[in-house]
């Protein structure tokens, strides 16, 4: 693993922010160190309020940070940029643009010519299975389709790292299973480097090459669980009987449970 270059590097990252209502300082992240290697899918789980989303917002460049460093391909993060694509939890595709125009938005921003743009957009529309919905508006799509559209939009900009913030939290259980399997397929096909934030242990274990467990506030890296299952074998019907998967999942679950009870006691 170490022979491959790290795409995303976080060193000694800590973060405090003032509470919106009381103004008191909240300690969200404490001394986070992590590295994401090329083509790797890393998931982050932890109890609510452990700073998962804070970490993602910092990496996306939406939240300024003071302590520690975070860099992508050696470039220090100091604002949003096209080298990091973000798939948000809520539907953040623009309601007044069609599916195709939403997916091509990143390329449009960079001033890529329309003919080239259309070709690339079609490629990703086909990849996420939205063929035939190019000219629909977001309000005409189901929740699952909106998230596919978001994924396609992010991939279409060809970011170095893709950041996903609980992207399947708001869709129904059946759709979620389909989307997880599709993301697995897409990860395999595109070999993207992905940081995937979730509160679902099953989801984390199903998708990740490595799963990072965060402790309760202040969020610290508590444990790393490796899941060495080839991508082509990751299908829910098989995984539920896969001993490697079950072992990994149970370990993550135990680790998270301890943190949840700690958080409750406080």
């Amino acid at each position, binding site marked *: 693993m170490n022979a491959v270059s790290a795409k995303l590097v976080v060193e000694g990252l800590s973060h405090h922010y*003032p*509470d*919106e*209502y*009381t*103004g008191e300082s909240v300690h969200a992240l404490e001394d986070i160190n992590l590295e994401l290697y090329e083509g790797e899918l890393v998931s982050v789980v932890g109890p609510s309020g452990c700073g998962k989303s804070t970490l993602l917002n910092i990496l996306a460049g939406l939240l300024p940070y003071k302590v520690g460093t975070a860099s992508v391909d050696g470039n220090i993060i100091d604002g949003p940029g096209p080298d990091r694509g973000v798939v948000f939890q809520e539907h953040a595709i623009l309601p007044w643009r069609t599916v195709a125009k939403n997916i091509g938005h990143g390329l449009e921003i960079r001033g890529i010519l329309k003919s080239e743009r259309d070709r690339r957009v079609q490629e990703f529309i086909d990849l996420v299975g939205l063929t035939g919905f190019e000219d629909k508006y977001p309000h005409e799509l189901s929740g699952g389709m909106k998230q596919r559209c978001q994924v396609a939009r992010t991939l279409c900009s060809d970011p170095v790292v893709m950041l996903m913030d609980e992207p399947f939290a708001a869709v129904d259980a059946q759709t979620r299973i389909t989307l997880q399997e599709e993301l697995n397929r897409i990860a395999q096909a595109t070999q993207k480097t992905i940081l995937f934030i979730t509160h679902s242990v099953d989801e984390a274990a199903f998708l990740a090459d490595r799963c990072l467990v965060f402790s309760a506030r202040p969020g610290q890296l508590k444990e790393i669980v490796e899941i060495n299952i080839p991508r082509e074998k990751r299908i829910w019907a098989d995984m539920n009987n896969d001993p490697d998967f079950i072992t990994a999942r149970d370990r993550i679950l135990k680790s998270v449970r301890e943190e949840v009870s700690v958080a409750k006691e406080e």
Partner: protein
Amino acid sequence: MSALSAVSISIQRRFGRQRLRKILLGSIPFLVMIGVWHANTVFEWLPPVFIPSIGDVWEAIFFLQEDCAGFVPLIMLDNSCLMSTHILSSVGRVILAAIIGLPFGIAFGILAGMNRTVSKFLEPVGVFANSISGIAWIPLAIVWFGVGWVTTLFIMLNTIFWLMFFNSMLGVRSVARVYEQSVLTMGGSRWDVIRQVYLPGAMPSIITGMRMSMGFGWRALIAAEMIGGDSGLGFMIFTSAAEFKIEEVFLGVIVIAVIFMATDRYLLAPLEKWTVERWGLVWKPT
């Protein structure tokens, strides 16, 4: 220092940090505006006949109240207490117009809305009456009632009535038929239906109508006082302008703005919010 921070934290807790931030931020442009206004007086970018000094505007209050001999002439709207007389006669007309105009507008609106044929029939009347904005009635009102308080009251009443009528009518019409039928099948009378279905059902629309009609009515009243009145804030700023007493004009405009903002913000807007929450309905304009 620690006492200061304790005070600041307790203030933040009391008002909420976000609200406090908005209040503080929002006051900055006003302070800057006052600063620029004062700087204009000091450096005379624009001469004082165009922009009076803050001090002159402040002193205009005392100048206008100079001859006021006490409380009795003040409430009797004596001409010696010019400032308070103009304010009170404007506000008095607003209250009078509200007392007469609101109930009548609501009552007729509900009656018209109860029957679909009647309301379809009367809708164009409402549209047309609201389209001839309050001020367009001023000349005809002067012909009918002469220059004076009757004309100004008529203009305000006219504006309030039609907006109220129209909003109440639409409000009643937006109430689902099922509610009306359910009360009737339980043996309720026509009066029960009005009281328990139409009135609460149309309430959000009625309250919105109230807020609108007071806003439009206030504007119309000021215009009416300027053109066809002999007292009130509109009359005051218009006559002061004719005599080039710009400090009195500024004073009048500020008082007009403050009365309007205060009424809307501390009376009508909370009322609207309360009704929406109380009846749990959000009225959507059709």
